[in-house]
């Protein structure tokens, strides 16, 4: 979370510099920032609600059942799918993944889960399509999904 403060610091300092140099330009910059935010706010809000509803059903126990150590490749596929449809902030996801590992999930399955969790976003697809277009968004997610199996394979091979 330190990085968030670094971001605040950087934004604050640059905003101050900008203000000293050119008041009008700074106004425009803030206006643009607000416009960009308001433009995407409805989708952000919808995502937050949907993610909440989804996570209410995907408890660590449910996830653990799908991706246990003995679940093999089917478990890897399951883990990749679960990671794709969930939206969990990293600082929640990593301790959760560590917990799952302790409770019998396999490294390969967790590798697939963490990878798709971060790279594939089914819930955020509407936002992505808005900026990147349908084809790019679908292809990016599909490729990231496929790539996550490679990540899982290497992690299963390196991590005991």
């Amino acid at each position, binding site marked *: 979370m330190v*990085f*968030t403060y*670094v*971001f605040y610091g*950087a*934004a*604050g300092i*640059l*905003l101050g510099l*900008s203000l000293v140099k050119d008041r009008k330009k700074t106004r*425009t*910059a803030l*206006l*643009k*920032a*607000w416009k*960009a935010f308001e*433009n995407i706010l*409805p*989708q952000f*809000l*919808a*995502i*937050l*609600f949907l*993610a*909440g*509803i989804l*996570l*209410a*059903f995907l408890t660590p126990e449910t996830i653990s059942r799908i991706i246990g150590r003995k679940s093999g490749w089917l478990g890897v596929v399951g883990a990749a799918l679960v990671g794709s449809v969930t*939206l969990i*902030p*990293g600082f929640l996801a*990593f301790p959760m*993944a*560590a917990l799952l590992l302790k409770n019998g999930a396999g490294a390969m399955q*967790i*590798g697939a889960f*963490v*990878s798709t969790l*971060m*790279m594939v976003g089914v819930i*955020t697809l*509407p*936002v*992505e399509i808005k*900026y*990147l277009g349908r*084809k*790019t968004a679908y*292809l*990016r997610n599909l*490729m*990231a999904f496929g*790539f996550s199996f490679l*990540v899982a394979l*290497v*992690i299963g091979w*390196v991590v005991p």
Partner: protein
Amino acid sequence: MKKNRLVRYLFPLAAALALGVLLLIDPPAGRKAAQVTLFSFKEMLLVIPPIFVLLGLLDVWVPREKMVRFMGDKSGLLGILLAVFIGSAAAGPLYGAFPVAAVFMRKGVKFTNLLIFLGAWSTTKIPMFLFELSALGTGFAVTRLLVNIPGIIGIAYALRLLLREEEVNALYARSAAMEEG
């Protein structure tokens, strides 16, 4: 823009309604969902403001020619490295990266560099890496990082090959149009 505000917020309103229904028919699950939503909402409020302020400043102060020189079509290896670095230095969830991508397009950043930036933002973020390191161990985190860096560059170029020139141009035109919206 004001006229269709209600239409724009129809989707989140429907999602909020679904949460309300869940609270009624299954209170424990509903409460959990509400908790998670509230938590992510707080995260968004905490993480998002500086990203958008920086975005606005970038838009106003950095001239297009500079961005083209450093990350445009002829930027070569420097453009790739910058894309990885800027994406990795980011904070916040991936959905915060898409508005940044739109500004990058307006500033003439090369499409593959844009995709590399998005890939780095999604999965090689430095703060997340540090967190992953402490939670899942060095072997796990470092392996993932080492596979990911060539991976996101590979995905970017493969994706570019699958898109036609006109399709990429259309995206750039659309992001330029978004500025007025």
